[in-house]
């Protein structure tokens, strides 16, 4: 157990530089990208010309589209979930390389984060109404700081959602929204 914890700690230390090197490593080695059409794979079929470049790249490398979800904010592009059935290192290499083609979304403004805070406080109050005892919301200033830091407060904080049955999850989603939380 202790060894596993130590290994986990070491892995955390190692991650940042490894992924920082990813573009270079990928540039050196992804030349082995498939030169022929990928084999057909089950999944959602979307015409290639309708896909953004990063998603199209993933599909061309064999990823299948599992789900296309509407954006949380009107005007944003759709959200994609894909699956890549390849050895982990190879799949990650492809992911890194294709991600270079993505158009990065600009960081949210204070006003946009405040709007999310207000929606999430309402979701928190809904969960309280269902009998849960989540961690109360912080100040909006602390929320914004968390958003721009290692992660913000969320309405389910303090609830062991991993222990929820599917029925509990469905009830919470239907009654309270929980826009930020999804199970696959």
């Amino acid at each position, binding site marked *: 157990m202790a060894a596993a914890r130590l290994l986990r700690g070491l892995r955390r230390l190692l*991650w*940042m*530089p490894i992924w920082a*090197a990813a573009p270079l490593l990928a540039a050196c080695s992804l030349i082995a990208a498939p030169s022929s059409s990928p084999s057909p794979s089950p999944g959602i079929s979307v015409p290639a010309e309708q896909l953004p470049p990063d*998603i199209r790249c993933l599909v061309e490398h064999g990823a299948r589209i599992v789900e296309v979800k509407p954006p949380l904010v009107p005007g944003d592009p759709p959200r994609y979930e894909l*699956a890549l059935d390849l050895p982990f290192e190879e799949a990650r290499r492809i992911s890194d390389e294709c991600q270079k083609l993505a158009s990065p979304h600009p960081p949210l403004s204070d006003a946009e984060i405040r709007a999310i805070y207000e929606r999430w406080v309402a979701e928190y109050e809904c969960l309280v109404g269902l009998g849960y005892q989540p961690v109360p919301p912080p100040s909006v200033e602390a929320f914004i700081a968390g958003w721009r830091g290692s992660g913000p407060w969320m309405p389910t904080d303090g609830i062991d959602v991993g222990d929820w049955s599917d029925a509990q999850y469905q009830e919470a989603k239907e009654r309270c929204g929980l826009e930020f939380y999804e199970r696959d």
Partner: protein
Amino acid sequence: MRSARIIAALALALALVGPVLAWQGEGGTQSCTYPILGYVHFRYNDIADVLPPGSSVLYLYRENDAQWHTHERNGAAGGGYWEVVADPALDFANTYAGCRRYG
């Protein structure tokens, strides 16, 4: 063998490049008692690549909206090795694997 590859990649990274992408990652092994499923719970900003416990499939979440999201995905019965990497940020405190009965 895997550790050797990681160390080699780390040395190369330190020698040749500075931080270019902001991928952050975490992983480990989650063993469950068969037939109970392993699952991974992860909180990330924008995009994430997820290998659920014991799975051979890498799942790619492309939100591309600069927002924080929480997801859970089941892995294999009995669990196994898992990893989550996210760009630009992973909430380490809220990223973990566990075991649960299906349904």
